[in-house]
């Protein structure tokens, strides 16, 4: 036989349910979003493209170009330090993922 004898999955059977639930939660959520009270990361406008985001991004506009600065979310760990303030640990994010929207090939 050239086929697998048996298949078991751990993650995938819950994936779709979770993905769809999170999309519905996002659309009508009453969950509190959490912003660190000491956040110095500036934002002027949030961006929501109608799809599911694990975290809601925020950013700035310069010359009509959106630059993502960081994220806020009710699920983010309190110790996570997101943003571009020099007073923070020097961790920046968003430097990967600019070049495409799906790798489908």
């Amino acid at each position, binding site marked *: *036989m050239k086929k697998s004898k048996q298949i078991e999955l*751990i993650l995938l059977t819950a994936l*779709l349910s979770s993905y769809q639930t999170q999309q519905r939660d996002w659309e009508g959520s009453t969950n509190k979003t959490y912003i660190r009270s000491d956040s110095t990361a500036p934002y002027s406008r949030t961006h929501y493209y109608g799809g599911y985001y*694990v*975290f809601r991004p925020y950013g700035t506009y310069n010359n009509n170009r959106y630059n993502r600065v960081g994220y806020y979310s009710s699920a983010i760990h309190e110790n996570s330090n997101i943003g571009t303030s020099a007073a923070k640990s020097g961790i920046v994010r968003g430097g990967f993922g600019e070049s495409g929207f*799906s790798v489908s090939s």
Partner: protein
Amino acid sequence: MQRVSIPARNNWQKAVEKLGFGFHTSSVPYWDESVYYSFSMAEIECIEKATAELWDLCLGAVQHVIDNNLYHQFHIPTTFIPLIEKSWNDDDPAIYGRFDLCYKNGELKLLEFNADTPTSLYEAGIVQWFWLQDFDKSKDQFNSIHEKLIAYWQYLIKYLHKDTLHFTCLRDTLEDLTNIEYLRDCAMQAGLETKLIYIDDIGWDESQKKFVDLENNPISNIFKLYPWEWLVKDAFGKNILEDVNDTFWIEPAWKMILSNKAILPVLWKLYPECPYLLPAYFEKDKLDSYVEKPILSREGANIKVVENEINLLETSGDYGDEGFIYQQLFKLPSFNNNYPVIGSWIIGQQPSGIGIRESANLITDNLSRFIPHLISE
């Protein structure tokens, strides 16, 4: 090889969604079980043999590119050459790849090799396997993808840093997420500690010169469903070269050579006697009937099909800045105007199974369907 029409399973959508397969239909059907392809065992063994041989030839071609400093033909940034050569000389292992093959009149030909971020793994390894269990579990299928993935993740443990293996992909694409969660599922079953992080959540700690996850823990090992040619162009691309953690990337950097269609003329130059290769060149004037392909592109974009110097078919897209190659035209077989491509998977350096994608014309694009298969004897 035969194409057989059948009634789809009653409420098949629910059946595949129970497996976590949520992108079975977009604006057009993608998963199509109203038909299947049937192969003889002899045909499957031919595909298996060809896949093993092509993998060996590809490894030889990578060595040739490195030895002869042919990176300019691939438009690989020179700053990344040391990383490529280190990953090759260190024998950094590759998990997988998918050879796209055309099978017609007893001949099997390589169309291209998706060596870095091949998708449709879940459909090939899982969805069509469960379809066969329902359709006729007594039948065989060329599909040991699942077993081989788990086995190879176990084998890879000794290569990894003793730390979590992160998995990363683009957000907002269920197809990419499903593919990577399937790979992570197999890694977990192999006993690895894993974590998922979307690619734009990866952090760079400038003070310590290392990549970090959302809890600011260093990323020591990372599987990416994101191509090297995009990584090197992104803002963090240069940080890969400054990373003091020596993060272990899967697929390894040397895959940049194989995932680039410039490998096709290199293969043809090295192995013109190989029955599975089509003539391919960097120059346009060597062939009268050819397919023009950007050296970096996806899903059939920016392809031109020319027969006897006449344009037959052309697709649009955003690719082609890095240049093109020209491969001899070997038309896909037509099964009532349905044109199948055989995606033959190599997992852990072994042929492991096939998935068929079928389109309504000679170019396999983002409207192509995934069709299950079985072995008829």
